[in-house]
């Protein structure tokens, strides 16, 4: 499973970073940087929270 960002929607609000800091970081320009893509089983719950928490609905988990 991996996480996909729709950069046309993301506005760098950063909720995902606070919920899954190993995956997401907003840089100094305010843009989201994906630090890693592959989601392990143990990380799934955390990633689902990030997906649900994103205010622009920019994140998706795909198999």
């Amino acid at each position, binding site marked *: 499973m991996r996480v996909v960002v729709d950069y046309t929607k993301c506005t*760098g*609000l*950063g*909720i995902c*970073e*606070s919920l899954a*800091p190993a995956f997401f*970081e*907003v*840089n*100094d320009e*305010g843009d989201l940087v994906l630090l890693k893509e592959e989601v392990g089983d143990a990380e799934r719950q955390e990633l689902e929270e990030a997906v*649900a*928490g994103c*205010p622009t*609905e920019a994140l998706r988990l795909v198999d």
Partner: protein
Amino acid sequence: MTDISRLVVVGASLAGLRAVEAARKAGFDGSVTLIGAEPHLPYDRPPLSKAFLDAEGDGTAPTFRERAQLEELGVELRLGAPATGLDTDGCVVTVDGTDEVPYDAVVIATGAHARTLPGAAALDGVHALRTVDDAREVRSALDAGARTVVIGAGFIGSEVASSAQKRGVDVTVLEALPTPLVRAAGPAMGAAIAALHERNGTTLRCGTGVRSLEGSGSVERVVLEDGSSIPADLVVVGIGVVPTVDWLQGSGLRLEDGIVCDERLWTGVPGVYAAGDVARWHNPTLQEVQRMENWTAAAEQGAAAARNAIAPAEARPYGTVPYFWSDWYDVRIQFVGSPNADEVVVVDGDPGTSGRWIALYRRGDRLVGALTVNGQSDVMKYRVQIMRGGSWDEALDFAARRRERSRGVSSPGSPVGSAV
């Protein structure tokens, strides 16, 4: 405990939508009914005071889902008529005074509505900004170049002022209190953020009460308490919101500035949960009883309340470090945590001169809040620390490292006063 096979969600906005989606995601296969007072499909509110008002926009409602997507989820939509009563003994929601919708579990997500100025309703050109219909009126007035007065220098009023300013329309912001945004960010930072208006060419008048709105048919001027007046074609009233609980009078639910809930978003009445702007719940993360008025909490609470409502035996607490953002001019303001602090320290930038700064909020020896202005890369790192119950010293050390990293300079944090 009887089987739960009928979930009813009242309020078809963000929290209500997330409630029905979470119930299905959790495998709930009973009936799901979503009751909404507005005729519209659920839509997103934050854009309404931001991009929606830009000259480039086209006035399309920022809906979350197509009708077909909700139907595919097996959600029965009842839009365009409000719930008017809740009978907690008979387990029935009444819609529009007559229709009865029975439930086994109900999530109340009726949100909040804009507080109004007495006497303002009689004049055209006077609007709150809560719904997409409000936003369309404001948008078309701005299109027409309306001289704009915003009453209330809160976040929504400030965003409207910023949109008007961007379009080159005359705009004045009036605030009754000596300092705006105190409840959201504390006095020192409230004043610092509000100064962004003047810096961007918008007139902000604090400590200025409004005596009346005048005009024949349409608003023509705003009369202030000192007797002076400001000409206006558009008045946007942004003086806060009130949780929408009037329909619950007599239901037996505890109503005190919202619906009082425990940490599981349970009202204490069997089967009845609440979520979003209408819910006042015990937030276990900060150990405070709070009612949120922000996107993130509404989305998360909607989902959490629905999961608890359909499986009360496994109900889980919902806690959060509150988060909101606001976009003014070219500035993004973000706040995490609680502004109820013993001390506020600016750890980066200078609110007096720069368009970028970071302030941290201390309570006891803990970090409880962080305000960033154009500090997108820092804000969530503090949210994580607050979530973990991080100490104040740790936060200051972290701030010092961030300062060095970004500019190679290090200056000590300067206290800006207490914010109680």
